């Protein structure tokens, strides 16, 4: 691999990593507040892509209007999921985990029945606009992923750190009972978190689907990587998740670029195991001592 190929592979990795980050942020936010891993998060990603497909292809809507509507649709879906699959089982040790797996399988099969197994292509005006920039060749569609991720990450940071709503979420995340004693409505915090997670995952749905295609299992692989990133970054730690996502994306791109494409997943999970051995509390997380 020469120097220019190396730089191109880093760019490719940042694009893949940004997609992972956008999916993983929702997973880590929900874990941060509810201490559950939402295995159905990938299915919101998938249903968002189907919604985008129907709005663009059948509804003939503008791509950006579609993106806004898909964000709203995914946010609503995430809230419904919280209400149906998580609220009643909160507090049971394995209950939410099992219901999230059940919801994931249910939604995959529902999509298979409703939309059929045939993949569908989501058209956009940006896929055929190819930019040649030195050694870099990419479509505008692909190039949109990195700035979109940056804008959303910044927006999320401001929302969590600088707003009353964000303080409410952080308070519930730190201690549910104390936060409620201080007048915070924890249920409202949970609902807002699911709204944010749903809206966030809608963005890769709309951006990535045109590069590939839309099909019922499209959420499975992406979310598997998202869980890896969440563990590497530290459960509930958004900064760690962002860093881990980009590191994993670049590592995968390098491995594939060296011709060892089959080793991509093995390397991802080797990195994960290494993190679990060396920094089990995450990339920039802090060691948590259990109370006696």
């Amino acid at each position: 691999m020469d120097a220019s190929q190396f730089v191109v592979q880093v760019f490719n990795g940042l694009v893949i990593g940004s997609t992972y980050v956008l999916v993983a942020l929702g997973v880590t936010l929900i874990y941060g507040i509810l201490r559950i891993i939402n295995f159905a998060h990938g299915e919101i990603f998938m249903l968002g892509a189907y919604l985008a497909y129907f709005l663009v292809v059948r509804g003939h809507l503008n791509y950006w209007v579609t993106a806004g509507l898909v964000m709203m649709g995914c946010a609503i879906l995430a809230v419904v999921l919280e209400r149906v699959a998580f609220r009643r089982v909160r507090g049971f040790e394995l209950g939410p985990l099992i219901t999230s797996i059940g919801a994931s399988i249910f939604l995959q099969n529902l999509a298979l029945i409703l939309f059929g197994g045939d993949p569908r292509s989501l058209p956009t005006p940006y896929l055929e606009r190819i930019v040649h920039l030195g050694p870099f060749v990419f479509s505008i569609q692909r190039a949109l992923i990195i700035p979109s991720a940056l804008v959303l990450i910044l927006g999320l940071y401001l929302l969590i750190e600088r707003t009353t709503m964000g303080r409410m979420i952080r308070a519930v995340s730190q201690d549910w009972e104390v936060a409620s004693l201080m007048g915070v409505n924890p249920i409202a915090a949970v609902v807002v978190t699911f709204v944010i997670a749903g809206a966030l995952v809608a963005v890769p749905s709309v951006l990535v689907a045109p590069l590939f295609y839309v099909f019922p299992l499209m959420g499975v692989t992406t979310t598997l990587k998202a869980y890896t990133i969440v563990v590497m970054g530290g459960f509930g730690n958004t900064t760690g998740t962002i860093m881990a996502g980009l590191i994993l994306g670049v590592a995968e791109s390098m491995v594939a670029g060296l011709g060892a494409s089959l080793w991509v997943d093995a390397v991802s999970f080797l990195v994960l195991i290494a993190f679990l051995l060396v920094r089990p509390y995450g990339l920039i997380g802090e060691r948590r001592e259990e109370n006696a």
Partner: protein
Amino acid sequence: MIRWSRSNGALFTVLALAWMAAHGSPAGAAGAGAPAEVKIGLPIPLSGSGASIGQRFQKAATLALEDLNKMAAGKMVFVPVSADSQCEPKGAATAGRKLILQDQVNVMVGELCSSATLAIKDLAGQNKVPLVVPDSSALNITEQGNPYTFRIIPHEVQQHTALARVAINYYHLKTFVVAYEQTDAGVGAGKSFINEAKRLGGEILDEIALHRDSPDFTPVVTKIKGANPAALHLTMLLDPSVRFLKALHEQGVAKPVFSSIWYAYPLFEQLTGPASEGHIRQLFYISSSKDPVAAEFTQRFKAKFAGEEPDFNHAQFYAAVRLVGEAALKYGPSREDIRRGVAATKDYQSAIGPLTFDAKGQVRLTPQSIIFIQTKGGKAVILDDEPGFDKKKILGF
């Protein structure tokens, strides 16, 4: 203690009647004068990455069974029994075991993925249940010789040897990158192409094994771009291939791509868009074919499914189900009768060409079995119809 009340008794009776209605009489225990029931087991992928093709198989089976039941005219009743074999060995073995031991099927038609078919094949042989394979290409499905396994399409060596001959003898291309998914069928296809291309004087610049679940092939494509081949040979399932070709197009790699039978027309073109331009592949059926048997199938399929255009998956599965059904009608409904009937098949006229099996249960390859197409302007151009495309001379058989 449970007390037996009148309402319990009524409930038991209703449940018993419902169970009997649902299950009917056991296979092969039809009463005197009742038509013999022939259960056709369909181990097909109904979930996972092959689900879309599994759904196609179901449609084709519906049409084939409708035709068979008409042909049987009340003497036999053909009943489909589906099981989700998931396009992978473990799921396929479970589905096969269920169909053979629990459902007691007379014959099986399936699977799609070679690894899954290999898992069912031995099970079928051990239990003496004929298995007709409509769509798996790995050589060892028939190469080992199993009297109960029959394949109706050319195997991977036949397919990819033919493709290499077209690439070199017709297009005069010399340097290739060969990329394939790391599965029985993928590896077999890639190696077959490489062997024949080398034999004909071609050069393989790179050989890349791929993971079909990879979310993005751009890094691999960047590597291929660096190798600068004259053409590519690609073997992967439809879904990942679409991602791969879109990445090639986006990276500006406008080289001819040769693939085998795995991409339906026109779905592949619709999904891949401009990235499919110039793509060359072989099929065993295309809906625009002028062959009378193929044309009749196309017309009947469209009439049955509201104008839907059939593709090779439909045609191959339809041909396989019709073949086993007609063998049952001619030779008898038992497993051994059907096996004998299928083995004796000679020049059976199907939508995918004439079918005759060799001693290993492999369909005999003829130039008529293979159609070569190239995508131009989003449409399939049949190379066989092009002036200068002398198929017999190019293929050498």
